[in-house]
C-alpha cells in the first residue's frame, strides 16, 4: 500500500512516499494503528488522511488501489 507523505511528516517517513505492508489494513483506523506502531512520533503529529482526493474518517474502507495521502497542516502562501 503506497502512501504519499507531505510537509513535516516527510521528516518522520524520511521521504515523500512510503510503501506500507498492507496486511490487515482494510480501513483508515487499521491504517492508523499500523502507522502509529511503526512511527510512534506520528501520535504527536496533527494530520489528515486523504483517500482518493477526499478527507477520510476512521471508518473509511481502503484497499491497495486507494490513493492515500497524509497531510499535516497547510503552510502555503
Amino acid at each position, binding site marked *: 500500500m503506497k502512501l504519499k507523505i507531505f510537509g513535516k511528516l516527510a521528516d518522520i517517513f524520511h521521504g515523500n512516499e512510503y510503501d506500507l505492508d498492507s496486511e490487515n489494513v482494510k480501513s483508515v483506523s487499521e491504517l492508523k494503528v499500523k502507522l502509529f506502531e511503526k512511527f510512534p512520533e506520528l501520535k504527536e503529529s496533527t494530520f489528515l488522511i486523504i483517500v482518493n482526493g477526499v478527507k477520510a474518517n476512521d471508518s473509511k474502507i481502503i484497499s491497495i488501489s486507494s490513493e492515500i495521502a497524509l497531510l499535516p497542516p497547510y503552510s*502555503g*502562501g
Partner: protein
Amino acid sequence: MKKIKDIFIEGPINPIFVAESITKHTVKTTIGGHSIFLGQIREDMIDKKKVQAIHFTAYKEMALEKAHEIREEIIAKYGLTCAHIYHSLGEIKVGEICLFVFTSAAHRKEAINACNEMVDRIKKEVPLWGKEILEDNSHTWKENKQ
C-alpha cells in the same frame, strides 16, 4: 467537464509576469479596479538563525482542485470579472515572490475584498507546505496562523 487551471510556477514569480498579467486585462473594458496580493519571502529569525529560503511542495492534484473551487466560489460571490492564483513550487529565496493573487471587478470594493478572502482561503485550504531553509542548511516547517 470543468477546466482546471494550473496555478503552479516552478521557482519565484517574476514581477514581469505580474506586469504581463495586468496588460492582458486592458481589453476588458468593464473592469474598474484590480487588487493584487504578492507574498514575499521574509528573512525571519528562527532559533537565532536567519531564514534563507522557503522550499514549497504541494499535493498537486488536490491543490489544483481546491484552488479551482476557491476561485469559482469567489468569482461568483463578488461578481468578479477575473481572478487568478499563482503559487511557486521549489526553493524561493528571501526577497522573492511566492504567491500572486489577482482579482478584477467593476468596482474597487469587490476586487479588494475578493483578493483578501482569496489569500485567506489559499493559506487555509490549499495543500501546500513551506520548508524554511535556515542559514546553516538546517530546516524548520513553516506554520500558518489559523
